[in-house]
């Protein structure tokens, strides 16, 4: 359960990795309570709770997991005598869970997270899914909503998990919250969940250039998610490679094989017509690119989405802007100053007052378009009744 780089990590982070690996194997109550305790600097209690849950449920750990958990329990100050009672095995460790996205697992999630986003640094993506199968020896009700969050290197997985879980609970949207980061890979349980999940928040905008770099070619923009150095075998993180389409269509973290719906998804007997319609829309989204306004019907971008939409100008838009600047410069400057190949910042520095006025008008037009698009997002996603 060490991170994929084999680095030494703190006890809370190691415990976080342990809990990620135990998701779906112990009951969600133990998982959530242990995360709460860990986030409250009570890692010893959290580790003892996990130990007791494993022992009472005779839930086996792999020998490597037993080793790591033992070290975490000892490092946290927990009672290491509990380790003697743990069951170790190598087979039938992972329960076969079924995940499904019918009936809006994302309903209310974005609205619940919105007030606390300022306290969630480096938030990259949020997905939601229903787990239709019971977890652990003392399971809670099914289906269970699972919210999967990916944070960047500046984010804290334990703190994010706890903060979002509390926000969701207080909003009446109970969920199990799983959080991964560049230092903590998604185990197979979360990968399977992600494959069936729907996006709630996406970080498309994080990879886009800010407005002042509009004239720089799009592909030169430094992707904000570049530090997310997921190994190739980690499809969950691989999805953050921001080299794909620049459409506002939500990027499927795991490819989203919607056609491969699990049999358990037929669990929902009372699928409402609106939910069915939205589900059908999602199936179409996977099979073909949708216009941004339709893609945003269930997805809310981070605040940077305004920047994203600005920087996602078409080639024609960029060309139009460059032509306008050329014309302005040609009217007042010597031919040798017309170069449009110079760095954007140099060009700006040499603009005349008329150029600047033209630029301001262009920016005003772009800002208007941003507002219109943001309004469209509001109407279709963020303030959707849950």
């Amino acid at each position, binding site marked *: 359960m060490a991170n994929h780089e084999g680095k030494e990590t703190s006890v809370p982070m190691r415990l976080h990795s342990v809990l990620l690996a135990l998701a779906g194997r112990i009951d969600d109550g133990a998982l959530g*309570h242990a995360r709460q305790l860990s986030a409250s600097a009570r890692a010893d209690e959290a580790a*003892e709770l996990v130990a*007791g849950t494993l022992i009472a449920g005779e839930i086996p750990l792999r020998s490597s997991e037993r080793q790591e958990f033992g070290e975490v329990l000892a490092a946290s100050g927990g*009672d290491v*005598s509990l380790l003697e*009672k743990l069951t170790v095995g190598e087979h039938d460790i992972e329960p076969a869970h079924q995940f499904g996205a019918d009936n809006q697992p994302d309903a209310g999630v974005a609205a619940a997270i919105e007030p606390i986003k300022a306290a969630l640094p480096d938030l990259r993506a949020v997905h939601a899914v229903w787990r239709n199968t019971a977890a652990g020896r*003392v399971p809670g009700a*099914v289906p269970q909503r699972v919210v999967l969050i990916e944070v960047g290197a500046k984010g804290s997985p334990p703190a994010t998990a706890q903060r979002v879980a509390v926000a969701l609970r207080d909003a009446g949207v109970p969920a199990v919250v799983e959080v991964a980061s560049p230092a903590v890979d998604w185990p197979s349980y979360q990968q399977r969940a992600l494959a069936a999940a729907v996006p709630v928040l996406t970080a498309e905008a994080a990879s886009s250039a800010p407005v002042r770099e509009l004239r720089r070619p799009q592909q030169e923009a430094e992707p904000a998610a570049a530090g997310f150095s997921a190994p190739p075998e980690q499809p969950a993180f691989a999805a953050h490679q921001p080299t794909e389409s620049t459409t506002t269509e939500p990027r499927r973290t795991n490819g989203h094989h919607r056609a491969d719906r699990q049999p358990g998804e037929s669990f929902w007997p009372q699928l409402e017509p609106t939910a069915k319609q939205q589900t059908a829309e999602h199936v179409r989204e996977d099979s073909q690119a949708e216009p941004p306004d339709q893609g945003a019907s269930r997805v809310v971008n981070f605040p940077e989405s305004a920047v994203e939409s600005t920087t996602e100008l078409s080639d024609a838009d960029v060309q139009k802007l460059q032509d306008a600047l050329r014309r302005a410069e040609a009217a007042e400057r010597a031919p040798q100053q017309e170069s449009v190949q110079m760095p954007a910042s140099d060009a700006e520095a040499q603009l005349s007052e008329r150029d600047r006025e033209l630029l301001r008008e262009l920016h005003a037009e772009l800002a208007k378009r941003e507002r219109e698009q943001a309004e469209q997002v509001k109407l279709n996603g963020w303030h959707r009744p849950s």
Partner: protein
Amino acid sequence: MESDDELACHELLLLLAGRLPDVALWRFRDWLGEGQLSVLASTVPKSLLRHGIGLDQREHALLSKGLIPHGADFHQLSATLRVGEAAVPRYTFSDTPPERASEPDSVAALLDAALRGRPDVGEVRASWRHDERGRNPKRVLLVAAVSGWPRLTGELQRVLRVLGDDEPSIEVLPENFEMPDYHREALANSRPVSVGAVGATA
């Protein structure tokens, strides 16, 4: 048949109802139902100390009887003994579920189906607990039984959790159990749910 140690633990966990947080109490009762006394010996005394819950002589005797044979730390146990009165949360109880008195109670119906005529089970009643501000209503199930208390508690907890009660309050009361005010008030404000094979009265 449970041991005297298990029965002592069961009675202690009954006496801690409404004092130890529900999230910890139901878990300890679950572990007891699985006979994991050594796990309880490692965790219950610490939990009491962390939550600042002092035990009176009766409770302390039950803790010692139940958990010292299973490795509980003597010093931790000693630190749990309280002198004087305890500050007990003031709950109120009601025999009707909040805001849905006229709606069908599917949980009660399921419990009745599962427990009606069941051996070793007597009367089963339900009450709704409210906190000091009259909020956060929570179902408290009172079950009279003549044996198998820890295991029956664990079984009913599992049922209620699947039905959506994440931290179920199941009070399986042995015969001649000297009830604290918590259970007396709950019983005084309860409604019948089912009757087992035993003619016991909760």
